[in-house]
């Protein structure tokens, strides 16, 4: 199965980096969608189905916490798993994001294998 992925990050450089990491990871990817903040992501998810969402936390506009919380309020949080990708490695932040509904957490810096491992863990299998 080839994944449809949404990357939510206000940094175009980081979105491009994650694209490259997917290329290096060996994961089969059908499409990688991109959004610059939570609202853009919500708008895109109205039109497109994705298998997994990777989101930053600190973003102008709708940030990652608001995005995950809004998805939970909408009752769609269980439909598509969200993995937080952040430099914030604190226990408090990890717990807070998990409480909001995040299913995975990847701390920057990370190696391609770490991204692959977290996606496979969250989606419950391997597609490589």
């Amino acid at each position, binding site marked *: 199965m080839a994944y449809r992925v949404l990357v939510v990050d*206000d*940094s*175009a*450089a*980081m979105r*491009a*980096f994650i694209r*490259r990491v997917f290329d290096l990871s060996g994961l089969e990817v059908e499409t990688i969608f991109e959004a610059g903040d939570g609202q853009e992501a919500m708008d895109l998810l109205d039109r497109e189905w994705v298998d997994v969402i990777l989101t930053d936390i*600190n*973003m*102008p506009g709708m940030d990652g916490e608001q995005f995950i919380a809004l998805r939970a309020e909408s009752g769609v949080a269980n439909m598509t798993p969200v993995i937080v990708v*952040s*430099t*914030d*490695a*604190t*226990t*408090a*932040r990890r717990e*807070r994001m998990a409480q909001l509904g995040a299913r995975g957490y990847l*701390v*920057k*810096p*990370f*190696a391609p294998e770490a991204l692959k491992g977290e996606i496979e863990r969250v989606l419950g299998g391997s597609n490589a």
Partner: protein
Amino acid sequence: MLDALREQALMLEAARDILEMMFFASPESSEVPEPWPGALLTAELRFDGALAGGFRIHIEKDCARALAGNFSGAFDPAEMDAKATVGVLCELANMVCGATLSRLEPDSIFNLSSPQPVESGPAELCDGVQQWLRLDEGLIGLELYLETSA
């Protein structure tokens, strides 16, 4: 003094981890340059939470272009235009600041502003700590300034 040394050590550790893993660069610690380097790109961000303050990163232009090329997978750093280079510089600032704060206060939550490019100048955050790094392509300066402690 001990706090400043700890902040400096953790900032160095965070920067090394990020530069090695995501930029494929192996920096060495360096003294504060005298005189202040001329052709620098600088990005700055603010943060609040358990600690509040600012973070600034300075990179010599050739070094910034080389790091941006490594981060983006460009075969030739000359492919990196100015906008893309500044974008990578801002992301590097975000990562080093976030990783440093996570090491300083592992049980707290911080909010970081979006890094912005700013005019370079010598140590305007002079009450904070500085750490300089040297790569083959040039110097990187890091400055962390803590305003308050909750």
